[in-house]
């Protein structure tokens, strides 16, 4: 059972890391700010979500599980809000550099 849980954790965290790596590559390689923002927020949402999902079986209490989920929800909220905020600022400045 614990072997199964550990395998699940390793798979999910690795998949999460792939999204983080892809997001970082996008941040560095994409040509304009809007697509860079897109790469960054997707990496945050999916990457962190998979890492949190992978860590869930390692928690020994319900409180720990709820805290992990709360962290993910808060990061989702923050990153979903800051992305559009930067994008709006960019549009108001009238340039996409």
């Amino acid at each position, binding site marked *: 059972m614990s072997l199964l849980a550990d395998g699940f954790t390793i798979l999910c965290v690795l998949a999460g890391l792939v999204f983080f790596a892809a997001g970082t590559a996008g941040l560095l390689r994409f040509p304009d700010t809007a697509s860079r923002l897109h790469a960054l927020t997707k990496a945050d949402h999916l990457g962190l979500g998979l890492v949190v999902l992978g860590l869930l079986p390692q928690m020994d209490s319900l409180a720990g599980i709820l805290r992990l989920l709360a962290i993910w929800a*808060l990061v989702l*909220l*923050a990153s*979903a*809000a*800051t*992305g*559009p*905020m930067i994008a*709006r600022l960019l549009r108001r400045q009238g340039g996409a550099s």
Partner: protein
Amino acid sequence: MILGLVADGLLAAGILALALACVATRRAFASAALFIAYGLLLALAWARLGASDVALTEASIGAGLSGVLLLGGVRRLAGLAEPSPDAETGPLLTVLIGIGCAAVALAIGAAVLLLPDPAPSLAPQVAANLATTDLGNPVTGVLMSFRALDTLLESAVVLLAVVCVWALAPEGGWGGVAGPRQPIVRDGPLALLARVLPPLGIVIAIHILWVGADAPGGKFQAAAVLAAMWLMPWMAGLAPAPRIDARWLRLVLAAGPALFILIGLGGALAEGAFLAYPPGWAKPLILAIEIVLTASIAVALALLVMGPPEPPR
């Protein structure tokens, strides 16, 4: 084991690289942004060393609050005229500054390298005497009991910083509303965050304060979160900044350090030493100081970010 070493090595290299880039970059905004990233990596390093309390404080105060203050400073600097070429430092001064900085770096490096092995530690004494404070977190025990004087001075420094920021109020601004006027943001992400986050953040701050007795956490971290929960609606124009001559504001600001000093004087009367707690009273007294200090520090940190009042237009 090896993997841990590789991770620590990467972290240390990242911290060094960010520190260098932060100093070397010529643009103030980039420098402030790099400083925030540097603070976050430093918090990770503290977490790797097992110092969760320091990591929390570094992330909230060192990276978060200081970062916001620096960004505010960058914005203010951008409004000023470029310094004239005459104001630039001459070669002699540049060399002297370089020698001074190098000497400080060498002295600190030498001090760290010359530490006796094993390093002198008071940790066993703290562990042996922690039971007298009824606290479970040795860091809180040190901060609030064994080295309470340091914490008292720290809280006084925050208050002093607010006084200094207010002293920068321009002509006609004294006593007015703190900081620049914020336009009201009715929709969009900022308005959403300003409405949704404060109820969650206030609960999280109280949690951080409360678990500080037995687990990593405490008043400075809680106060930073509380200050952020006030600043967000302020930035969205939903919560007006207070007038700096408001009686309640000054009372809240002074209450924490004042209560700390009063309890310290009480210790001097009852136990014969400043900041000594009577046996059995340590936990309730520490709790009272922590709660009131959290309110004082939260208000002070928020006021630091809001800045000095501006003259009426």
